[in-house]
């Protein structure tokens, strides 16, 4: 940090950087080294099969004080700045190298994306993402890393954010979600069946057959259903459009205007209620097996969500209040009860920077 003269060597008191700036840089260096060390420890634990646990830290609390939504919009504005044509390939290739994007899949030549924003939300060449044609499968709506999956058993069952911290599906999708109806129906059906089975085991099989027609029909004829979930994280370099996982009718859209915390692995481990507090759009509807919902959750750098079936929807808007998660902006698509029919693999939404 000392200025040196070729003749006289370092002289005391002649600094290139003021002391406070140097101290700040050193402090950030130490914090960064500590963070790298902790992340390395998490990687090593994972390799040993030990799952990292939820551990709130000071930095996570500090994030709540930052104007993350304003920062996100500023970031988005910067990313929309048109780049000179000659610089575009170099910039996009650097981005791709940093975030492991596959440039061979981009639908257009790199020179034709006017800004990083346009490049970020690029579409792909025809045939880059073949859709599994099995009518009995659900396909991934996005490119990304599977974080969690499983079955929700009984009303109010929680989805694990990370070991040691969970959130309810209802708080994610909204209190007015049709999920509650589906959950309760499945749960009560399961209990009805269990009680009838138990009864028939203890006494006699005909008790089932003489059960009221309503119960018998419900037990024997209606297929049993479970509620499943899958959480997928998109890296900054991933393709950021959302496709339909099945043939379904989108009946409702719910928009929660919330925080825009980062969503990386560390944030998932340290920020409480990350998915429930962040801005998100929920598409809810029906497929041939029942209820289905897709929740697209924004982050600081990727804060806006665009719906192809409702282009006028604006998210991450300046001045919009952070609404209570119980009171989202909701829209029922026409015709009521049927909504918008979407085919498996069709584009339904996209994430934008800022």
């Amino acid at each position, binding site marked *: 940090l000392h200025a040196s003269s070729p003749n006289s060597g370092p002289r005391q008191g002649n600094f290139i950087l003021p002391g406070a700036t140097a101290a700040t840089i050193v402090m950030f260096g130490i914090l960064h080294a500590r963070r790298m060390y902790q992340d390395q420890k998490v990687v090593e634990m994972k390799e040993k099969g030990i799952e990292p646990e939820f551990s709130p830290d000071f930095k996570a609390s500090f994030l709540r004080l930052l104007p993350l939504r304003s920062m996100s919009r500023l970031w988005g504005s910067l990313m929309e700045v048109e780049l000179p044509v000659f610089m575009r390939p170099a910039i996009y290739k650097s981005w791709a190298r940093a975030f492991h994007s596959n440039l061979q899949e981009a639908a257009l030549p790199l020179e034709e994306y006017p800004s990083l924003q346009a490049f970020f939300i690029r579409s792909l060449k025809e045939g880059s*993402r073949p*859709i*599994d044609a099995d009518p009995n499968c*659900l396909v991934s*709506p996005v490119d990304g890393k599977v974080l969690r999956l499983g079955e929700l058993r009984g009303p109010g069952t929680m989805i694990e954010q990370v070991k040691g911290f969970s959130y309810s599906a209802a708080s994610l999708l909204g209190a007015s979600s049709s999920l509650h109806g589906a959950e309760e129906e499945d749960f009560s059906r399961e209990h009805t069946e269990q009680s009838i089975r138990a009864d028939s085991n203890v006494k006699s099989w005909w008790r089932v057959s003489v059960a009221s027609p309503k119960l018998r029909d419900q037990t024997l004829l209606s297929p049993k259903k*479970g509620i499943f979930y899958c959480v997928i994280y998109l890296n900054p370099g991933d393709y950021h459009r959302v496709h339909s*996982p099945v043939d379904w009718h989108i009946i409702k859209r719910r928009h929660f205007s919330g925080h825009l915390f980062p969503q990386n692995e560390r944030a998932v481990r340290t920020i409480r209620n990350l*998915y429930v507090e962040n801005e998100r759009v929920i598409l809810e509807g029906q497929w041939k097996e029942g209820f289905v919902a897709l929740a697209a959750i924004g982050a600081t750098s*990727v804060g806006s969500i665009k719906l192809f079936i409702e282009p006028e929807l604006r998210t991450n808007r300046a001045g919009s209040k952070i609404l209570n998660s119980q009171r989202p902006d909701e829209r029922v698509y026409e015709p009521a009860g049927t909504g918008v029919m979407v085919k498996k693999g069709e584009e339904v939404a996209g994430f934008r920077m800022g």
Partner: protein
Amino acid sequence: STVVMVFEAPVSKAREDGRSVTTDFDFCIKAGDRIRVGEAIGR
């Protein structure tokens, strides 16, 4: 950014012994997998 899917799917056999659950629907992916649009997550 993150996407969460919640959906109903068939379950063939529910908690007969009070513990195990056999499902008709099966995930064909696991936590930690990389996945791309259009690839099956379950059948």
